[in-house]
């Protein structure tokens, strides 16, 4: 059985009045571009964009990793990323935040996730990018399977 994305409409946040015109929250199988996401979040009022680029590493816990496969609950993942984004915008006064996660099987060196945040000032941008990443790893419904030379395993899910 192949991984599938279960899509649903991204939830809006009518309870808060946050400008998301320079923000983006997306889960898809398409390759990621940092420059594209920087262009999304940048406004004329910004002096700083900080980005995090997560890539497939060739090892984990001392074992050789051949590839990673990402599966997502697409609609909910985008909705959870939006919640994180709104919280970061409010807490750090960002002008924009983009969070995009790739799904499917990725080779070593390929990009799995990018977070880009724009802010008038660099300290807020670094803090928000780092916090958004921690929150993504804690709450956004995406799962990672590691492919080794002698098998495969879903990360952190116990015996399959």
């Amino acid at each position, binding site marked *: 059985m192949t991984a599938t994305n279960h899509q649903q409409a991204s*939830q809006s946040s009518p309870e808060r009045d946050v400008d998301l015109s320079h923000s983006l929250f997306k889960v898809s199988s398409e390759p990621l571009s940092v420059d594209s996401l920087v262009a999304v979040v940048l406004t004329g009022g910004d002096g700083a964009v900080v980005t995090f680029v997560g890539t497939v590493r060739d090892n984990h816990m001392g074992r050789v990793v051949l590839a990673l496969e990402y*599966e997502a609950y697409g609609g909910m993942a985008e909705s959870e990323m939006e919640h994180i984004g709104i919280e970061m915008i409010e807490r750090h006064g960002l002008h924009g935040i983009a969070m995009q996660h790739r799904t499917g099987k990725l080779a070593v060196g390929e990009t*799995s996730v990018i977070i880009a945040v724009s802010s008038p000032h660099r300290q807020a941008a670094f803090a928000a990018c780092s916090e958004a990443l921690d929150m993504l*790893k804690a709450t956004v*419904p*995406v799962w990672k399977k590691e492919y080794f030379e002698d098998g495969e395993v879903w990360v952190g899910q*116990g015996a*399959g």
Partner: protein
Amino acid sequence: MKIKVLLFASFRETAGLSQGTLEVEPGATLGDVWATLVAEHPRLAPHSGTAAYAINGTYARPAERVSEGDEVAFLPPVSGG
């Protein structure tokens, strides 16, 4: 009443099922839905302690009640990034 159930990652592979429809009693909670699912797929039982629950794309607690037509998802510990 009928609800839609989604499974992901190791749960999906363990049950051999990515989505399906379950018949549950009116007033059933998410915990009841999980118990019904585990009865059909006993190999999911070891995951009872780690599963997170969602209704219609939002995290929810086990005591939350489901409604006809809801989309209920059972989520292994997330590992994105």
